[in-house]
């Protein structure tokens, strides 16, 4: 009897498979904190979590696991996420980066899937480029509230960008115009309105896409997706730009750009050692422990 018995339809050995998988989450705010919690519930064994920020009172309306005590103590978001993950899956390996994810790219290189809960277009663009260069599927989440009083529209999207499929630029989420507009604001995406329930819908959708990649449960899994969320009607539909970009080679990330362009086997650069996966993490996967 395993704590994951109720999800055995995910695959005959899905407990072991998920226990051996590593996910990266960049940004542990409203979206990323939900994703971390759900990945722990499904039994992911190893996490790379990155966020430079500490809990503030304005995060209390949506950050899963965050408490008033965390606001008082200025608890780092990575520490809150670790607490949530280990509260569910005690022996999960949690590699924390209380900084921008770029400072520990060596950890993100080893992920099987990367999820971005990042606000700025520039940050999304950079994380996708990194994922493409290292042959890792990237799932991007974003939400916004548009309009004025009485006319608010909650909208969001979840995009799956796998190597060899349309990228965020192909699907119109990242454009030079948006990057320029953001740069004019000095890269500050601003304190956009955010609420917990759309974050939850988008995070669940992102985890659903990740589970199609990590387990063989789905008869026709997707490797690319652009799902648009309308929070006013409560619907998720396929984005029109996605259909237009299907079947066309992605011109933004050529296959020949995979890997480190400066790689030279004759003079290997000094590299940081990625921590080995813990003995406890492996034992707990074998024993079916959370």
């Amino acid at each position, binding site marked *: 009897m395993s704590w994951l018995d109720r999800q055995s339809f995910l695959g005959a050995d899905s407990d072991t498979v998920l226990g051996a998988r590593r996910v990266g989450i960049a940004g542990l705010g409203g979206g990323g904190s939900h994703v971390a919690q759900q990945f722990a519930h499904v039994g992911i064994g190893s996490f790379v979590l990155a966020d430079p920020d500490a809990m503030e009172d304005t995060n209390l309306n949506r950050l899963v696991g965050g408490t008033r005590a965390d606001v008082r103590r200025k608890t780092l978001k990575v520490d809150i996420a670790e607490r949530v993950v280990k509260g569910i899956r005690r022996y999960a390996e949690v590699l924390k980066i209380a900084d921008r994810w770029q400072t520990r790219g060596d950890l993100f290189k080893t992920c099987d*899937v990367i999820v971005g809960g990042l606000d700025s277009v520039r940050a999304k663009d950079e994380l996708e480029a990194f994922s493409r260069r290292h042959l890792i599927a990237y799932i991007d989440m974003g939400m916004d509230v548009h309009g004025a009083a009485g006319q608010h529209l909650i909208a969001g999207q979840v995009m799956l960008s796998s*190597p060899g499929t349309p990228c965020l630029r192909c699907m119109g989420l990242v454009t030079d115009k948006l990057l320029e507009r953001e740069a004019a604001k000095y890269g500050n995406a601003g304190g956009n309105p955010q609420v917990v329930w759309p974050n939850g819908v988008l995070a669940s959708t992102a985890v659903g896409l990740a589970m199609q990649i990590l387990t063989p449960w789905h008869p026709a899994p997707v490797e690319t997706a652009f799902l648009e969320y309308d929070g006013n009607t409560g619907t998720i539909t396929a984005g029109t730009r996605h259909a237009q970009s299907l079947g066309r080679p992605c011109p933004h990330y050529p296959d020949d750009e995979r*890997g480190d362009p400066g790689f030279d*086997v004759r003079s290997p*650069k000094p590299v940081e050692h990625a921590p080995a996966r813990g003995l406890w993490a492996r034992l707990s996967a074998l024993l079916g422990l959370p």
Partner: protein
Amino acid sequence: MKTQIKFTRYLLDRARTDLRRPHAFAHERVGFFTAGAVTNGDMVLLLARSYAPVEDADYIYNPKVGATIGSDAMRKALQFAYRARSSLLHVHCHGGRGRPEFSGVDLDSGSEFVPGFFHAIPRMPHGMLVLSEDSATAKIRFDETKAGQYASGFTSVGAPLVKFGDRS
């Protein structure tokens, strides 16, 4: 130094489909993967970039072995890899399921031609790879003068993501 090799599912499927095609006289087909590389701790990740089949006309009749390819095939493969300064991986398929092993002939011939890859692209690791229908084995050299090391595992990136050929 350990090596892991990653492919997109599309590229791996393309190679397997190509290598299954019968040839007029060769018993098996040969192709080449190119790959980029990154280091991670004591690990090198080879990230497959492209696949190029050996053209029909570049096989040499030799009933004693599965396939023999001529110098033109090697030259074209090196040109193919040279453009983007890629690793070059000679690949053929043994069919069947489970982790395949190189034959003695594979290892002997590989020890002759793989060092030559370093003359064209000395900065990258090179090697040889054998596929089955669901797994693979590879020997990778980091130096033309040193023996190859078995890759510790493979990943097919797609939906679902599949890991195979583990030797860690």
